[in-house]
């Protein structure tokens, strides 16, 4: 907190330290959320430029990391939207299709067999909204309210977005059809 306070006063050394401490995590966040490495690099740089401008607005009673991730998420989503990639590839046509409930044991088996690298590769195949939602929730631990705010959807809809994202992920992992045997219950 002292570091942040010093950075807010314009201390360049403190700002440098702050950047070095948080840049790796923010770059990783962007790397997960953005489609290419170059986009992630650009986004990271721009997020910190934005952060430097907004640092005076930071409410010290709140978690700094949560606030920083909120800025990052908003920025990444804006970038994606500007790239006209906001609409998930399957979002419009699959939205009405009911999701099939996975067979629990097969889902467990799938999770046991998959490595982190495989999951990351599968994440790259997801639509923008699905990936963004998963990153916000499971990487930066953002609340449903914050996710709803960032994605511009109603709070009640966040669960649906996350669930559909998980199904997309399972499909990308190549096991979706085998798992979905029980049907919706």
């Amino acid at each position, binding site marked *: 907190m002292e570091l942040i306070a010093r950075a807010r006063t314009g201390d*360049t050394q403190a*700002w*440098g330290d702050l*950047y*070095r401490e*948080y*840049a*790796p*995590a923010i*770059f*990783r*966040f962007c*790397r997960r959320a953005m489609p290419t*490495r*170059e986009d992630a*690099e*650009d986004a*990271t*740089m*721009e997020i*910190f*430029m934005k952060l*430097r401008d907004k640092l005076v607005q930071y409410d010290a009673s709140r978690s700094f*990391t949560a606030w920083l*991730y909120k800025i990052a998420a908003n920025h990444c989503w804006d970038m994606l939207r500007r790239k006209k990639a906001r609409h998930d590839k399957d*979002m419009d046509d699959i*939205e*009405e299709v009911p*999701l099939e*409930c*996975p067979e*629990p*044991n097969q*889902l*467990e088996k799938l*999770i046991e067999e*998959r490595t*982190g*690298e495989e*999951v*990351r590769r599968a*994440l790259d195949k997801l639509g923008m909204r699905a990936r963004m939602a*998963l990153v916000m*929730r*499971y*990487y930066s*631990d953002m609340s*449903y309210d914050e996710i709803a705010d960032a994605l511009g*959807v*109603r709070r*009640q*809809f966040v*669960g*649906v977005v*996350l*669930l559909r994202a*998980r199904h997309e*992920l399972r499909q990308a992992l190549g096991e979706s059809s085998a798992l979905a045997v029980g049907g*919706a*219950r």
Partner: protein
Amino acid sequence: VNEPEMKHDQPPDNACLDEMTLLLYAERQLDREAAQGVSLHTQTCARCLTLLRALDRESRLLTRSMLEQEEPLPARLAEFHAQVKRNMQWIWGLVFGLAALGVYELYATYIAPWQTQLNEAGFTGNNLLSLVVFQGAFWKGWASMFGLFQVLAVMVMAGAGLFAFRRYLRRGSAMAVVLSGLGVLLAVASPATATEFRKSDSVTIQKDEVIKGDLFVTGNHVRIEGEVDGDVYAFAEQLEVSGRINGDLLGAIQTERISGVVEGNVRTAAHDVTITGTVERSVLAWNDSFTLDSGGKIGRSLTVGGDSIVLDGKIGRDLLGFFKNCTISGLVGGSVRARGEMLSITSGAEIDGKTRFNGHKEPNVSADAKLASPVEFSKVEHKHEARTAGYYLWRIIFTGAFILFGLVLTGLMPRFAVETVESAGQMGASFGLGVLVFFGVFLASLIACVTVVGLFVGLSSLMLWALMLMASEVVVGGIVGQWIMGRDHEFWPFFLRVVVGVIAVRVVTSVPFIGGWAGFAVGIWGMGAISLALYRRLQPALAPKIPSVPLPPVNTPLPPNTTVGGI
């Protein structure tokens, strides 16, 4: 997006829960009453309990996968560099405005008067550029394809293209594709005519020999006694043309003698040139001594620079000369514009146009010489001691231009700018390397231009060299600014030091007598610093300054682990 109506609060008794409800329960998104219902159900339903556990584990797998670090922080993100993207649009407007002013000034001060002079000397339009620069040995299409402004337009478009696709060009592979494409384009551009190469200590084109197409010849002694039905590009110690060249003659030659016929133009840099034969079109020659013999004839204009010029023969049109001594005894069909120390017009001379001489001494004009009008003489004045207000005004404008140039460079390459200025701090290394680059790259580029390496490589290197020379004042300004104000590598403080330093450097280089030498030293110093910074960048041992970011420990503040509940 359509949002379906959902009701997760009351899961039905005696029935398995849906996945949505279990997910919301796992993520603690259900209210207390609904959560209790799910908890009770999972105590009696193995299937739902298994699914709940699977969802929980899936959450953990997602978090773990995303947290795993598989690549280091990129080099350009190793340190924060405030990009000058926002609020900088006005800078670009100013830069372009100033650039336009500079182009206009360049055109009005240098190009237009030269163009006028060259038109008078027989060149028209942009022929000079196309003939002298772009008429390469391998593709004659340059001449018809490019004019000066076309070249500028192409360069601007190329710059805009590179800027537009800069994101993709970061990848080495993409850059390689672009360069390969450019290479293929150049390679595909087939020559208009075949080129024959001759290289030997002594090369002779025999009397009965006819070469169809261009001839590229190098050797100590070159004789052209036969016929060349194309252009001749010659690099030789001695060249004698007693035969016939149906195109142009271009070359760098120690001693050149033309006793035969050249149907086209002659463009040469030589020590001694003697023309006793005929050149049907124009001659452009830079040499120590130039002689147009009484039997010699130039169909159009002569543009000549040298120590000693003797003109006994016939020149069809204008004469433009820069010399120490010049004697005109023959016929000049057009006007004469000359600048030099001494001009003599003897009794046998005939000049059909105006004669203007800007020299150190009054010309010696024989009373028997036939002149269309009296010689207009103006004495050369040394103006460097009397500097006008205009001089200082332009110094100020150019100082502003250099500062803006520095701003652009710093904005585009903030980290490299800092590294370059730091390199300038090592004066010994910078000066040493600067001398090497200043002379070495310049000479190598010139050699590349006139040899088979090619104009493209040569001109590209020269442009790079010129750019480095322009940037050198900014670099030296940066280090001088740091000496004055102390070090600071943040963008604006750094740029402020560049501004102060550039002003200081410009003041020093404006001082009479020492200013020129100071400017020369600044050029060498700055070029050396840029080269040193580039060299360090390319050193593999120094490159990985990027900290490889390890996997953060579990208790790291970023990001916190996802909490899942309910089991």
